[in-house]
Structure formats: structure tokens, C-alpha cells
């Protein structure tokens, strides 16, 4: 069973002459343990693909399946539960709640899902610690730097029993070293039953993925073949 399947997914915004095809007949399968990056220029449909994969928006055409669940056949309540329980989102604007501390922001999805307060808080602290934010647990979002807010958002996305991590330009506000720490964590999280999709225009971010898919005008036009392994690099001509 794949972690995520998009079959013939199209998305049209607007009507008549103002119609925009954001996605055109996209087929994409992500296996458990796999991290896929979707690269493309601005306006190519990356964010649309991610919100549809995360069942935050409905496709105009086609089918999305997360794990065993064909999203279109779920009730409203089932869909909400899927989003809360199985999917971790990292969006460009972070979406942290201003009235909650870092730890509360991270533990909230678990508590909404019925995990006891103390256990949820412990899980949140572990996730924050892995991102080097242990000493920021009690701070509110407006007491954090942009980069710290971003890492709290990542911690919230990976906490608990998520099966699908979806990230939209997850290291946009971070310098290279912190961006790398974020991708390392996303990469580590995507193993076993957990899969991930990162959309980005940044090749350095994308290069953390097992597979890079190229999007252009809403279509998947190409993808990288799986890495050949480091030997091919070390045999390269040193005087290059």
C-alpha cells in the first residue's frame, strides 16, 4: 500500500476566460519511507499539489488516496480525522497560534486527537529538543525569531504518529545550516511507515529527497532516477 497516490489530478481555478489550470492530470505515488521533492518555478502548481495531497482542497478531477483512504469517499468527519492524525503540514506562513507557547502549539494536534495532556506535552518536548528548541518551549510565537517559528512548525508537523509529512518551502526563512537541520529531521522522520512530500524551488532542499519530481505549468514533466550511490562521485576526476 502506497502512502500517497494522486491519480489524474487536475485543478482549475476560476471560470470561463479567467480559468487557470493549476494542475493537469498529475499522477504521483509516494511509498512509505520515501521522501519526494517536487521542484518547479513559481506558479507551476507546487502549493496546489500539496494542499490537494493533504486534502485541504479538492481536485477538480482525479483521485487522492492517503494510505488506505480514497479521500473523496470519506465523510467530512473522517476527512478531518485523517488531516489531524495522519498528516503533518508545514506551510510557508507557519500557522502557529499566537496565544499558545511553542510546546502547546506542538502538543495541540495530539491533544485534539485524544492524547492525554501530559503524554502530549512530553512528545512535544522531544520534538522541540530534536530541533534545538528545548529552551524555547515556554515562549510564545511573537517571542521567537522567524527561523525559530519555522522550526516549531516543523516540530508540530512531525510530532506523534504521522504517516505523511507535507512541507511547502520548509526552510524558506532559515540560513543554510539551519535549513539543513530541518531537512535532516524531515529526512529522518520519513522512514518506516512515514512518507513525505516537500515542494520547493530550491535544489539544495530538494536534494535531500529520494526522488525529485519536476513540475511545469501544472504538469509533471520529469523526475530524477534514484541515486547511484557515493562511489560514482569519489571516482570522479580530482583535477576537475
Amino acid at each position: 500500500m502506497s502512502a500517497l497516490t494522486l491519480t489524474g489530478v487536475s485543478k482549475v481555478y476560476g471560470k470561463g476566460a479567467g480559468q487557470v489550470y493549476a494542475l493537469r492530470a498529475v499522477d504521483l505515488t509516494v511509498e512509505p519511507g520515501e521522501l519526494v521533492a517536487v521542484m518547479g518555478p513559481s506558479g507551476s502548481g507546487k502549493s496546489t499539489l500539496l494542499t490537494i495531497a493533504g486534502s485541504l482542497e479538492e481536485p477538480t478531477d482525479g483521485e487522492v488516496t492517503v494510505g488506505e483512504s480514497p479521500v473523496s469517499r470519506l465523510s467530512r468527519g473522517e476527512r478531518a480525522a485523517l488531516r489531524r492524525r495522519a498528516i503533518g503540514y508545514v506551510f510557508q506562513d507557519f500557522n502557529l497560534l499566537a496565544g499558545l507557547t511553542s510546546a502547546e502549539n506542538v502538543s495541540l494536534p495530539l491533544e485534539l486527537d485524544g492524547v492525554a495532556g501530559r503524554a502530549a506535552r512530553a512528545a512535544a518536548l522531544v520534538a522541540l529538543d530534536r530541533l534545538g528548541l528545548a529552551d524555547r518551549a515556554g515562549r510564545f510565537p511573537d517571542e521567537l525569531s522567524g527561523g525559530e517559528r519555522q522550526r516549531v512548525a516543523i516540530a508540530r508537523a512531525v510530532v506523534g504518529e504521522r504517516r505523511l509529512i507535507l512541507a511547502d518551502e520548509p526552510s524558506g526563512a532559515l540560513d543554510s545550516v539551519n535549513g539543513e537541520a530541518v531537512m535532516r529531521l524531515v529526512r529522518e522522520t520519513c522512514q518506516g511507515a512515514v512518507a513525505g512530500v516537500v515542494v520547493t524551488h530550491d535544489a539544495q532542499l530538494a536534494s535531500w529527497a529520494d526522488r525529485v519530481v519536476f513540475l511545469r505549468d501544472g504538469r509533471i514533466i520529469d523526475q530524477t532516477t534514484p541515486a547511484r550511490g557515493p562511489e560514482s562521485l569519489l571516482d570522479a576526476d580530482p583535477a576537475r
Partner: protein
Amino acid sequence: MSVRHALLALLSEGPKYGLQLRDEFEARTGEVWPLNVGQVYTTLQRLERDGLIESDGEDEVGPQKSFRVTVDGAAELDTWLRTPPDLSAPPRDELVIKVLVAIRVPGVEVRDVIQTHRRHAVELMQEWTRVKRDAGPDELSLALVIDAELFRLDSVVRWLDTADARLRRAGTVPASGPPSALPDPGPVRAVEVRR
């Protein structure tokens, strides 16, 4: 990469033998630049001839011979460390030429050519990132070497992205269908790219 100055740097820490120098060179560059022992001995002979290092015996260069840096050698190393490398762009970048030629060759979709090179660069970046990911936290030299490769390849991808967008804006590459008009791309020098 100057083997000559790398050896001077290693000798500035204290006297060393040839084989030891080779092993340390490879370790410090994250084993990304393999060096054969013949290369090490030839370089050591030249450094000694130029008075930048010295050895004890009169023997042939070999495993038993130990070298140390001279005052001139230390000065040479210091000068080298502070001399900027040649960062000016090569006059003709092969990738730039290929894209410029692709615009003019009938029956060739320039955006396909661009995508082929983009995919290749990203695949290389994936391989380097994998090496970095598997490296231990103490392998600092390796991480630095890989970062440099990643930034170089990243700039190639960004140039390709920019070329793609510029060609599209110029109407050379329509959103769908074959290219229509092929405007003069202008002289090679007008395109700036660094590798």
C-alpha cells in the same frame, strides 16, 4: 587544488614522512581527492628544490625520509592562504554554449535541453547530499567539501531556471506547442554564469 600548498600546510604542523602526508591529505579533504604516493614524492622533491621544505638525509626520497617546512616555505604558505583564487567566470561555459546553440537548432526544444541538464545537476546534488547525510558529525572537512560542491551545482540549477524563465518571457519557449520565432540570443558574453 594545489597539492603543493596542501603539503606545505601539513608540514607546518611539524616534520612528517611522505606516506603520512598522503594519508593526512586524504583525511583532511574528506577523502574526496585521492592522491597517489608518486604525486606526493614528486611534489616534495620540487618543494625541496625550491627551498620551501628540507629533509635530514642525502637519501633518495622514500618512506624513511622526513620533511619539515623552511622559513621561506612558511612565508609562501601564508601568502597563498591570503591570495584570492581566480573567481572570474570562464569566457565560455560549456553549459551556456549548449543552451545558446539549442535555441537555434531546428527541431530541438530548448526547454527539454535545459531540463536534461537540470535533472543531471539535481541528481548529482542528491548523491552529494547522501554522502553528507551518512557522514558522522565529526567529519567537518567532508561536510565543507560537499557544501562547496552543492553550492556550485545549485548555481548551475539556478542559472538554468533563470534561462528557462527568460526564454519563456522572450517568447522563445511558448507554454505549449513548438517554438515560434527564434530571436537572436545576442553575444555569449552577455550571459553571466559562474560554475
